[in-house]
């Protein structure tokens, strides 16, 4: 028996100073408990916590969604209204408009983030001088809090003192105060996409980088032997082998952006008018400003089912792609 074995698998009988009674006391303590019971004992606190802070509120919310509860008028009798809240939501033009706005935001921002993130990953995957420095610089935006990002972009985009308008003015000759990125109906939706992309493209880059690094070198070596061009290698090796990672990035970002609230709320408050009012902002207004608890519970359920359903379909597709 070597020293290492002695340390990793202590045999009390052979180690001086460790006596047998210690072992028997320990055995008595767990006497009568099966391995399964011990496993439950360990898992139980987590399950209890999950039930208390996730499952119970979810069930409670489902219950509330069938009522007329409005917390600003809690003196009114609580009435069961059946599916009225759901019908109100699904027949409300404004809700559909908010969903459309959200879909446009999600699709545009995720598409841009994937293109830019993948491009950055391809660049960072190469070895060059200052590689670590540039990687850190690129990753900085995603390390910031969305509240900080929202506030400082508000300043950057301010038409009179913000440098962004001056930069555009320098490039195009348009007077800097003649347009407002957050205040114009035609620009505001693109502004939230721009800021979100600035913040989260590095995250997509990280995921893509993991995908690129997982491709074995010998595949490229074989392609080199076959005299495949760099373009051919990209289309036949790099892209297909990183597709599962890209899809994962799309899934993560789409879910995140579907519930985007803080950054957009700080940048535009959903305005001008309701141009950038994402469904999450509508939900917050209904639940915590209008206090329409029953209605907002129903809206939250509809959104949950939508995201859950879409994510499930997407994950199944992702698995199929992986199997290929």
């Amino acid at each position, binding site marked *: 028996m070597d020293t290492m074995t002695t340390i990793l698998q202590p045999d009390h009988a052979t180690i001086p100073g460790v006596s047998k009674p210690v072992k028997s006391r320990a055995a008595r303590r767990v006497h009568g408990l099966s391995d399964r019971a011990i496993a439950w004992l360990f898992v139980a606190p987590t399950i209890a916590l999950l039930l208390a802070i996730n499952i119970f509120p979810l069930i409670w919310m489902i219950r509330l969604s069938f009522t007329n509860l409005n917390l600003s008028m809690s003196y009114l009798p609580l009435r069961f209204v059946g599916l009225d809240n759901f019908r109100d939501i699904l027949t409300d033009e404004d809700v559909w408009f908010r969903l459309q706005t959200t879909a446009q935001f999600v699709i545009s921002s995720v598409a841009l983030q994937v293109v830019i993130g993948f491009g950055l990953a391809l660049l960072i995957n190469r070895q060059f001088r200052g590689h670590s420095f540039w990687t850190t610089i690129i990753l900085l935006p995603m390390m910031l809090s969305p509240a900080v990002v929202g506030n400082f972009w508000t300043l950057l985009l301010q038409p*009179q003192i913000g440098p962004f308008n001056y930069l555009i003015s320098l490039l195009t000759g348009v007077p800097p105060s003649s347009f407002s990125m957050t*205040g114009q109906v035609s620009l505001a939706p693109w502004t939230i996409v721009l800021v979100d992309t600035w913040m989260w493209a590095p995250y997509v880059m990280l995921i893509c980088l993991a995908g690129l690094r997982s491709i074995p070198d010998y595949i490229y070596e074989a392609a080199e032997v076959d005299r495949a061009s760099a373009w051919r290698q990209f289309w036949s090796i790099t892209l297909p082998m990183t597709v599962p990672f890209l899809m994962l990035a799309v899934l993560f970002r789409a879910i995140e952006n579907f519930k985007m609230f803080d950054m957009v709320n700080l940048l535009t408050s*959903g*305005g001008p*008018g309701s141009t950038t009012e994402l469904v999450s902002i509508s939900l917050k207004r209904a639940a915590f400003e*209008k206090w329409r608890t029953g209605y907002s519970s129903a809206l939250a359920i509809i959104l949950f089912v939508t995201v859950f359903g879409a994510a499930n379909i997407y994950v199944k597709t992702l698995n199929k792609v992986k199997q290929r």
Partner: protein
Amino acid sequence: MRRLGWLRSTVASTVVAAAALGVLGGGEAAAQGKQLTLCWAAWDPANALVELGKDFTKQSGIEMKYEFVPWTSYADRFLNELNSHGKLCDLIIGDSQWIGGAAENKWYVKLNDFFDKEKISMDDFVPATVVGYSQWPKNTPNYWALPAMADAVGWTYRKDWFSRPEIQSAFKAKYGRDLAPPKTYDELKQIAEFFQGREIDGKKVYGAYIFTERGSEGITMGVTNVLYNYGFAYDNPKKPYQMQGIVNSADAAKGLEFYKELYKCCTAPGMTNAYMQEGLDAFKSGQVAMQMNWFAFFPGLYKDPNVGGDKIGFFVNPAGPKGHFTQLGGQGISVVATSDHKDDALAYIKWFAQPAVQQKWWQIGGYSALKAVVDAPDFPKSAAFAPQFLESMGIVKDFWAEPSYAQLLLDMQKRVHDYVVADKGTSQQALDLLVKDWTKVFKEQGKEVASQ
């Protein structure tokens, strides 16, 4: 065993230490005596109230603690607190529109018995503030707050610019009248157009600053100043909750159109989501000739080294073709029903209602609603903006104060911002949609809404 022994001694030490701390902490608390927490918005008058509160502590021995929240999250934060029956606030200076919900939901302590016992008469306060901040139902002797901070929308202007001979002559040449603080909204628009884009001291300046904020209450608190004066009303005075043809009358639509014209012609670029603070910044930085804002900020502006003193002037919200009103601001002070220190909180209100305290409140930057203060002969001369404040308090109108006010407010925010800033639809369509929204809210509240 040694390990267990260590654990035991550690636990024992912790318990002893905790007990000692508890005793010490308890002793400290006992030494400090009683404490009250007062909740309000974080703004200039709140600082004045902190100063004023020191006198209360001196007299009563009760320590005052303050919970001030910025205006943009003030309603969210404190309505959440009241809704959840929290114990954060003993006293709250709640917005005038909360009074209906606070009374119906029993968030506030009803003060009638207390007022009777302490001989505090609501007749001693400015009538508009009693109706606006204290009564629910309105115009009934049911009091839920003591008027604490009288306020209304007023205007500031650059007196130094207005008085420059070259500017005066240019204005007279263009409009055929003297440049003076406007009495009507048409005059205001002319002056704003005159200043818009003009170069003063080598700097481009803009005509007017008006409220356009989308998220909380900004654009509504701005647009109502024009709407009231163009004939808008919330409902038919003879048929409560009948809004069709009143809220969306042709006159009201013209008023809304006017606000949009003012926003388009005469405001600084980027003012698409601006409220009190943005207005103060615009005025203090010498960007605008005229500024719409709450009287509460005027003491601070008057003291400003760059634009205050002789450089600033004040005027009452201008009249429109159908009347002369202004938007009521301000708040009353109430005792929170879930407070464990109701008696101390009532003692604070009793102290605050005293004429001497109210006089000091006005002197240090608050706005008293006590008649003894504002009707005193020397009051108009007590501050540069005092006459305008006094006049404004006589012509105020307030937004709905129903329990469902938040829904009504957010609906108006949306419809007005959609039209004024986002160029969506016509003014008539915006108001028609507003009537539809409000009708739905009142019906949900169980009110009967007559269509005609």
